[in-house]
């Protein structure tokens, strides 16, 4: 760093890094600031994983129908729950067994319900945490807990923390990419990839499936190459002349670089999302030929291509909140699986055969689970399950996770997490740990204190989950 730097370190960290790059664990400004340097930095300790693919399941998937078999529910189907597990808000009534049979899968015998025939093939790679609990039974606040570590609004999402902590390994692509459903926004919209009070550069960049992958990557009215390059050349001259009169203004140089990066990104992003160079077999595996699986399959395949190119964190979303099965729980849950199971299974297969699964942590889960008792609306077939924060399941695979196991347990009815109760902060600490980050050291000074993802929680890395 030369003497002409007149910015404070924090300001520089706020501003630079070629827009998308990463920063910084209290390390070198020199590395983080200038866009021409690769901004990727080392973490607190040797990482097991270098990328994360987050399969966020909006609405709260029904744990007792997917990952947490409860024979007692089936046995006492249709009867009022005992007081110990009665709905505390009297919104659900009789216990409702899952209509789906559970099977022991893989060598490990980890149980999955029958509606996940593809994902369950990877049982030996997957660790199911069955003892999650959260602090709010409303979607938004529970989403914030899952994504930002607390039930209050305005905090940075997990992906933003990764972008801040680790940057990107590809200077032409963002560190944190969000893949929303072209069918419509998810519940909580843009907050799903917000950087909160971290600087805006750490927010997720939306990549789209169709058309130009990033907003304004290209003009709506295309320009010829000759026109485009003449414009760029003029801008370069104007900026160069301006800079000549202002030597040492780092920020001006950084902004000039953002224009250069924008140009490189046009190529890199377009290439990353060009699925046509995937084999027919691969496309088929992800379900791209099938109308039901095509949309999610496309995003799964995009996710693989992005992590392959060094993107740090990719979040996949579905429109609305499809797992929110207040009515028709059984068909609703099954339909979600029909849309996602094959693509997710394909993603795991594909990552594995390309040798990427070891370095890619795959996260699956939503903001809460669903009640063991039925929300009774209309006919029995249309019964639903309500939001349920007291016990639910998520799963992790790859990225140094010890698969073929479940961790923790809910009670006999799937109501409450009772064994190895897992607060969100423990899950977050574990995820950070796999990426080589210590949850207590990844801080950002805000509002007079050093804030972190796990905030005030006494979080611990779940050693049992680690390979």
């Amino acid at each position: 760093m030369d003497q002409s730097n007149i910015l404070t370190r924090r300001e520089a960290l706020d501003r630079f890094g070629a827009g998308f790059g990463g920063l910084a664990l209290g390390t070198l400004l020199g590395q983080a600031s200038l866009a021409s340097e690769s901004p990727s930095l080392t973490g607190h300790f040797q990482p097991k994983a270098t990328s994360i693919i987050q399969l966020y399941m909006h609405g709260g998937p029904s744990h007792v129908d997917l990952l947490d078999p409860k024979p007692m529910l089936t046995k006492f189907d249709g009867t009022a729950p005992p007081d110990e597990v009665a709905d505390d808000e009297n919104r659900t009534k009789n216990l409702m067994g899952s209509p789906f049979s559970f099977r022991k899968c893989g060598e490990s015998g980890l149980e999955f319900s029958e509606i996940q025939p593809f994902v369950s093939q990877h049982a030996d790679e997957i660790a199911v945490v069955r003892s999650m609990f959260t602090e709010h039974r409303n979607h938004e606040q529970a989403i914030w807990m899952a994504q930002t570590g607390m039930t209050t609004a305005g905090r940075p999402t997990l992906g933003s923390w990764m972008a801040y902590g680790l940057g990107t390994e590809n200077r032409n692509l963002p560190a944190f990419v969000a893949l929303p459903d072209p069918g419509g926004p998810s519940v909580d919209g843009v907050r799903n990839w917000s950087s909160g009070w971290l600087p805006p550069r750490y927010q997720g960049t939306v990549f789209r499936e169709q058309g130009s992958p990033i907003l304004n990557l290209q003009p709506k009215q295309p320009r010829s190459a000759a026109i485009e390059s003449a414009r760029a050349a003029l801008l370069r001259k104007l900026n160069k002349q301006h800079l000549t009169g202002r030597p040492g203004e780092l920020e001006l140089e950084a902004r000039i670089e953002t224009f250069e990066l924008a140009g490189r990104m046009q190529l890199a992003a377009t290439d990353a999302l060009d699925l046509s160079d995937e084999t027919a077999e691969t496309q088929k595996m992800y379900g791209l030929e099938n109308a039901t699986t095509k949309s999610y399959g496309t995003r799964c395949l995009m996710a693989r291509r992005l992590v392959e190119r060094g993107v740090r964190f990719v979040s996949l979303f579905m429109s609305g909140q499809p797992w929110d099965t207040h009515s028709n729980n059984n068909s609703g849950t099954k339909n979600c699986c029909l849309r996602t199971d094959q693509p997710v299974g394909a993603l795991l297969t594909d990552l594995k055969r390309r040798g990427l699964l070891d370095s890619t942590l795959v996260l699956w889960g939503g903001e809460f689970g669903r009640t063991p008792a039925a929300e009774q609306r209309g006919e029995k077939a249309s019964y639903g399950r309500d939001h349920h924060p007291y016990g639910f399941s998520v799963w992790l695979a790859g990225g140094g996770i010890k698969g073929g196991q479940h961790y923790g347990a809910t009670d006999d009815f799937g109501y409450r997490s009772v064994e190895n109760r897992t607060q969100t902060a423990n899950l977050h600490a574990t995820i950070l740990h796999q990426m080589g980050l210590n949850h207590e050291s990844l801080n950002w000074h805000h509002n007079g204190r050093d804030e972190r993802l796990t905030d005030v929680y006494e979080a611990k890395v779940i050693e049992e989950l680690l390979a």
Partner: protein
Amino acid sequence: MNSFLLRLIAVAVMLIRLPAPHHAGELLAADDPKAELTFENDILPIVKAKCIRCHAGVEPKAGLNLTSPSSLLTGGKSGAALRIRAAESSLLYEMVSSEKMPPVGQKLTAAEKGILRKWINDGAKGVSNAATLDRSDDVTDTDHWSFRPPVRGAIPSVRNGERVRTPIDTHVLKRLEENGLGFAPDADPLTLLRRLYFDLIGLPPTPDEVEQFLTDTQPGAYERLVDRLLADPRYGERWGRHWLDVAGFAESAGILNEDRALPLAWRYRDYVIDAFNRDKPYDCFLQEQIAGDELTDYWTAFETQDRLPDDVVEGIIATGFLRTASDPSRPDFSTIKNAEAQYFYPTLFDTLQIVCSSTMGLTVQCARCHSHKFDPIPQVDYYRMQAVFTTAYRPEKWIPQMNRRLHIASKKEKEAAAKHNAEVDANVKQLSDEQAALKSSFAERIFEDRLKTVSEEVRADVSAAVKLKKEARSEIQKYLAERFEKKLRPQDKDLDAALATYDDFKKESATLTAKIAEEGQRKRLFDEVRALYDQPGEAVTPVLLRGDPLTPGPLVQPGVISTLTTAKPFEWTTPEAAAKTSGRRLAFARWLTQPDHPLTARVMVNRIWMHHFGTGIVATPHDFGVSGASPSHPELLDWLATEFVESGWSIKHVHRLILTSTVWRQGSRVSAEHRSACEQIDPENRLLWRQALRRLEAEPLRDTVLAVAGTLSDSMHGSGQAVARQKDGEVIAMPDSQGPNRRSIYVKILRLNPETMLEVFDQPTIAVNCTKRSTSTVSTQALTLLNSDAMMKAAAAFAERVLAERSDDPVGRAVLIAFTRPASSDEQTLLSEFVAEQTSRYLTEKAEAERQKPQVKAESHRKAVADLCHMLMSANEFVYVD
């Protein structure tokens, strides 16, 4: 099998896992929904049976005594044993349900767990608020500089006084000289002009304004320009926006995905703009925002005046400041369990955070959960300040946000209107009845007319049958009715179509419809204000242990931060029972705005300074506490703060002081010698040896693009421009009746749909408030500038403008407009060549035959000029201010 038996079996099955006896009596107690569980009758027996060996007596284990209901909230070493109405997150329940407790001996039976759970979830009857607070962490040391009143010192002496224009200069130069440094030369006039425009109104000068300034060679020209810009109404739009940041202004309710629009929020925005334009004294500005209703005695005016006086209306609008916190509440929230804890208290927390960070630069929110770790802010003081607002924001009696509003009307007006409107309603009803009667008479006519189509033999029989009541019909009549009724009598959905064929009906009905509409127009409706105002009656304000509304502690009375040294204490007495408003907020506002309050003036002058220099004298404008930054010029800060107060809290006075100073007028471009000498000692320019190069914030940038394009509307005030998310994800402002493009302060701020260009250039997405903006430098900004539709349109309009204004020299004109300076001759050559070459590039993309056509040539030229304009607007010189 009945459910009771099933339940027994369910319990029995659980008992297989946890063999323990159970008593039918216990089971029944938990089972009967009517039985109210109490600590004495239901919980104490369980505690005595299973817990008393450890958790009782003088030294209970882990400090937790379970035999006394009052100690359950205080809890032990691990915190509260229970959270009221939240068994699932109560430590006591967690310990027994996971069977960690009791560690030895019999676990609780399923039935006992059920009883415990139900008792807690039903409100833990018998448990009272925790009686004591742990105050061991309280910091009472008030040694911190910002907790003592500012002291106006003597103006220091300096060695090189010739560049000193104001006392500010003396203070700054003193520090520079102490370090062997000095001022940079003044910036050149055009640079100053541009900087001044952006600092004060957020827009560049027009070519005419440049001309005007350059030709005013009389002494005092610069000062006159400062005054002119301070008097420009666009000043309020620029500086009002700064205040809206710290106020956390948004026009949607937040929290929930529905992000409900707040259609009344704009009045507060306009109040802020006008307050800055009128240079409303800052103490008054704060008093109105915190207690405008009490200050102007809204309730008396409401009860006694014919109409609300303007100052009262302004007062209640000003309290919109206290309504910026996210508040998603709706009437149906009353059915949500623990809605106070989940929704209502958070609004109260955010409000206090906004009030304290904006006016006092303190991070009081830390003290919500525990006494502040760094600052002398005891937890109890946080709740004393919360009590200032709990007569208005009552968690236990919450008013849904859309219903929390006042009308711009006196009681007399409202009563008169109610009477008047009742008459109108009666008239409308009468007219509607007439219309209904008309309809049925015509329906009858339709029937009669249609009856004529029935063959004559049966006509009378059919008519008789249809006219009879169903049950009175004979078999034959039933048959006839069934056969003909539908055809003859138009059903509701067909009736209108059938009626439309009768011209006389149409005419009469239209007359009635018009009358109804006309009558309806006479209804007297009043404009509504999104205000904060008290609810009558005493308020209860508990300290919340660990900030948790479900573990309430001792009650407190309104108060302030006890460790702040003020000449006048917080003075408030309980009003008489019938009082409409408690006076708490006014007492707080008066305490806050007393002349030598340690923080109020300092924090505001620091903000003003920050917006003129890029960095505040205290670099952490939101944190004047122990962990905030130290002031770079403490004496100057105090001098400015006292000067501010002495000027009658005039913000414009502070602007004048700053803008006429040498410090502010320094160039940002300095010689290599000056730079290297200064950077050796002060690389961050904290001593102000030059002015800073600053990037335009989102709003002035967007406004400037529109202004140079000539498409910016100057219409002020009123409901903002709507925004809409496009299919491609871009959120844009939608054209409305006030023009296609208004200044960005008039673009609606929706928390979940921020306007894309503003968001990309760091307009804050409001969660609580924004006390200091980020300035990011990212590629999405480059992409937005280069490729967005808005920029393409602006470039085309800019090109049209320069071609219309100076067809002989569009290039020179464009540079002047965009950069506030004439083009150099080198630039003129470079840019003219670009236009010529780009024109021919566009031409070569046309078919050979087309190229010679004059309109094709002109079009290509226009596109080339548009490209030039576009690149000027994307250039660093456009985006940065020297």
